[in-house]
């Protein structure tokens, strides 16, 4: 309701604000003393204490200043009611987001040929695309169906390991393994889904976390099959529809560069992998966008909104949940082989809970349900890793950002839900 409300009298009561900030600083001091003020360091193989009171002072001062600024900003900001508040949030409306999307796709396609591009950049872009796909996959489960899956990395692992192992045992190629990986992961998704169906949000999350860990521990310890912590190497790279990317082709085949009369360039393989995952990611995106407009997609969202009401409408929550798990898992499973092929090596280390948490962070920060937001979040995640100064702080920032988003913008940075169908066509909708 857009009532024109008078803003409250400005609370720039200096004394009150200072006291508030001082209290916050006091709390920060208590928190900082043991862990910031002191550091346990190893000197000559023995632990000693190093004091860091200067850091402590800086930290406390920062908290004081930050809290003060926050309070002042809150006091100065006029009360925004109803639509005024809504307009303050940067709304990316449909037209603008479509434009951004096309622009992004154009940049992505042109990337390997842009002036600043290099093998390193393309490699990075491939990694980003993998995370984007994982984010879109988890989005089906968390964002659309509202099921908090903390073990999503298990499906990614299934995809990667199934490719590595089948390539090793049955000498199947990348393209032959890819659909198998997807199907296998989807089956895992259904198998995982069955037991967790009746569980409520919190418990579902923990059980999926348990499953993720069980998979990782098995990968780590089932040495005869998975080679344990040593991992699996010598993973074959994808070929260009049968043309391998080798400097010298194995007898009986023509290599890619010979076929197209190019000089051999080791970058070809990297660029091809990038385009392959880009194409698959875009295809998956179209697939999920389409699903959202079909009954199954609406059922996912309805389930997220209110499961009891779904039952009252005759919708079987079991099949809806299973379908969400299966599709989400399939997407994760399809991303796995790309990761394996990119590195030519996989080990259980890459499939820990922290990885699941990162993918969840991408979905949450991007806005659960928003395809574009997830792309941006993935770019930021991968980008921060590469930025020299920020690499160590990456997860710290992400953790804080997850808390921050939930507190301030639970619907994510960009999300404003787009209805799956309209009666009246494209007019400005919400009051």
């Amino acid at each position, binding site marked *: 309701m857009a009532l024109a409300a008078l803003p409250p009298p400005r609370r720039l009561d200096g004394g009150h604000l200072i006291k508030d900030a001082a209290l916050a600083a006091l709390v920060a001091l208590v928190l900082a003393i043991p862990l910031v003020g002191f550091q346990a360091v*190893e000197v000559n193989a023995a632990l000693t204490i190093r004091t860091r009171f200067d850091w402590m002072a800086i930290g406390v001062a920062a908290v004081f200043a930050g809290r003060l600024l926050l309070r002042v900003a809150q006091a100065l900001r006029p009360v925004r009611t109803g639509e005024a508040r809504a307009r303050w949030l940067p709304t990316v409306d449909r037209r603008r987001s479509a434009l951004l999307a096309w622009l992004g796709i154009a940049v992505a396609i042109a990337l390997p040929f842009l002036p600043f591009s290099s093998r390193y950049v393309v490699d990075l872009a491939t990694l980003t695309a993998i995370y984007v796909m994982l984010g879109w996959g988890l989005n089906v489960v968390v964002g659309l169906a509202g099921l908090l899956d903390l073990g999503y990395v298990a499906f990614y692992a299934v995809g990667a390991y199934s490719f590595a192992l089948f390539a090793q045992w049955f000498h199947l190629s990348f393209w032959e393994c890819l659909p198998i990986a997807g199907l296998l992961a989807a089956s895992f998704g259904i198998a995982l889904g069955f037991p967790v169906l009746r569980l409520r949000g919190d418990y579902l999350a923990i059980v999926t976390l348990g499953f993720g860990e*069980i998979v990782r521990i098995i990968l780590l310890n089932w040495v005869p099959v998975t080679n344990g912590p040593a991992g699996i190497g010598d993973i074959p790279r994808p070929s260009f529809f049968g043309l391998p990317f080798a400097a010298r082709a194995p007898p009986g085949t023509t290599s890619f560069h010979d076929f197209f009369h190019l000089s051999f360039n080791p970058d070809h393989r990297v660029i091809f992998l990038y385009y392959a995952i880009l194409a698959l990611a875009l295809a998956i995106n179209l697939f999920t966008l389409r699903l959202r407009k079909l009954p199954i997609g609406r059922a996912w969202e309805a389930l997220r909104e209110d499961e009891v009401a779904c039952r009252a409408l005759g919708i079987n929550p079991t099949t809806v949940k299973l379908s969400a798990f299966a599709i989400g898992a399939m997407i994760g499973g399809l991303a796995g082989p790309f990761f394996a092929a990119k590195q030519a090596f996989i080990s259980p280390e890459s499939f820990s809970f922290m990885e699941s948490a990162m993918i969840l962070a991408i979905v949450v920060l991007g806005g659960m349900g928003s395809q574009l937001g997830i792309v941006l979040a993935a770019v930021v995640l991968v980008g921060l890793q590469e930025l020299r100064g920020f690499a160590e702080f990456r997860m710290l920032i992400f953790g804080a950002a997850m808390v921050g988003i939930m*507190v301030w913008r639970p619907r994510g940075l960009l999300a404003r839900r787009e209805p799956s169908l309209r009666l009246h066509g494209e007019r400005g909708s919400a009051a």
Partner: protein
Amino acid sequence: MGYFVQQLINGLTLGAIYGLIAIGYTMVYGIIGMINFAHGEIYMIGAFVALITFLVLGMWGVTYVPVALLIVLLSAMIFTAAYGWTVERVAYRPLRHSFRLAPLISAIGMSIFLQNYVQLLQGARVKALPPVVQGGFTLLQDSGFTVHVSYLQIFIVLLTTALMAGFTIVIGATPLGRAQRACEQDMTMAALLGINVDRTISATFVMGAALAAVAGVMVTLYYGVIDFFIGFLAGVKAFTAAVLGGIGSLPGAMLGGLLIGLIEAMWSAYFSVEYKDVSVFVILVLVLIFRPTGLLGRPDVEKV
């Protein structure tokens, strides 16, 4: 036989530690119905504070063990309680009326943040403390196997028992305990009757954190090595314990803790050490699927 008794003793000690952490989970779940995913990290912080306090005391020349222990316990409990309080205020209180998944996601973010916070401040490497409480005695000799009980193990079990007893008294007989139980039943009504719900919830977090801190002290003493990642595993295991015993039930948390400790000890002794964590995860999954109310919990009926 001797081997079995030794595992029993080890398992009980481990179980006591898990039980202390589990109480934090179960109390928070009981009062606000959410899983405090960051509780494991609170325990880890407790361990680090304990370690650092020991080192500082060593530096200052306080070496008399009982005094040092007391100071370390107090220090860990106070600082960790502060962390627990802050986490609730920053990450959970603003979300009390938000949608269902919000506090859980926030908790996960908090957990990630705290892990990396400690990792950055104290380094990623494992920290080893020279043994503080040493010595023990032989309980019995059985066909060549000596069953050894250390003073530290006795200390852990006794302290845990004392804390449990104290806790039960607090919950049962003090105004705070009553307020807590009232909030568990019906928060709105409790507020209408004049109970400061915010403060009660904060107190719950603080108490849970303090107990987790004690567990952290014990782990530092018992194992001698800690790193920033111990919170995750211990957290999941302690949560399993809380669920196994019946989430929301205090005696259940303790019982669950003991059971998990025993199971873990027996499993690594008689089956395989590598898969001992899997055994706990499997229990977690089985309990949540087949008996989510646990051993001592009460089933709740879905109200439409």
